[in-house]
């Protein structure tokens, strides 16, 4: 398969994720869409790493995976904290970040 197929597929998944971040209101689903975008980035990195015959891109993708895991942990912690305070689970209602 040509590399451009993989890159276009990755661009498509990235755009689906971006649309989800822009349109959905639940922070949980927004985090899921962020995962989509990060994974699309990883796919492009790995496709280019295969194209260049160099494994550095795979290390990049691995680090992206680590960063995504950290982001999930913090994001879900914030959602649980919102739920504990009985705040609305809705990003439109939560327009300011204070204590």
């Amino acid at each position, binding site marked *: 398969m040509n590399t451009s197929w993989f890159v276009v597929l990755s661009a498509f998944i990235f755009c689906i994720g971006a649309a989800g971040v822009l349109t959905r209101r639940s922070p949980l689903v927004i985090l899921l869409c962020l995962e989509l975008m990060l994974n699309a980035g990883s796919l492009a990195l790995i496709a280019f790493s295969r194209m260049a015959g160099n494994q550095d891109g795979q290390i990049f993708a691995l680090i992206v995976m680590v960063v995504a895991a950290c982001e999930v942990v913090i994001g879900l912690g914030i*959602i649980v904290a919102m739920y504990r305070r009985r705040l609305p689970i809705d990003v439109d209602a939560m327009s300011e970040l204070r204590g």
Partner: protein
Amino acid sequence: MLFEQILFFIAGIGAIGGALGVVMLRNPFYSVLALVAHLIALAVLFLLLRADFLAAAQVVVYAGAVMVLYVFVAAYVGGSDEPLRPEGAGVGALGALFALALFVELTIAVVGSSLGALDTTGRDIPAAFGSPGEIGKLLLTDFLVAFEVASFLLLVAAVGAVVLARKRRGLEDPEPAPGVISAHEAISGPKEPARQ
């Protein structure tokens, strides 16, 4: 070669379908399950690109561990259906339009780029390309700093999650109970009452 193409299209359709499911399903619980399907399809694509270790890590770490975390939180917060926007579909249509424009722009950038290697399968690679041994060797030689920083980042995230999710009574820290002395007092002696 034909087998690779068939596998690419099956996995690609699976990945796109999973991604669309994440965005379009109303119930967050089903969105999480769609993301699991998406991640597994993506792991197949990683295998096609000869990233064996990453495909395994994707399935084990992502589709396994991280998604379990999501399912727990979706069950804890309550997988209630998300209400539609009160202002109608205007904002949603704008977001979809923006994403479509972004996709067209990215595709033009990829297809129209003068990078000739994009139209090849890639260079000839050794048999061990992307194997755990090779990745481990790179992580411990060329990318040692990135490896250590990643481990530190994971530690910070773990501490941050505990701080965020611990039980608190209100916005302020609770007053210390009478008879409890703080570390500062233990060192510098009991606090003297302020003299007027």
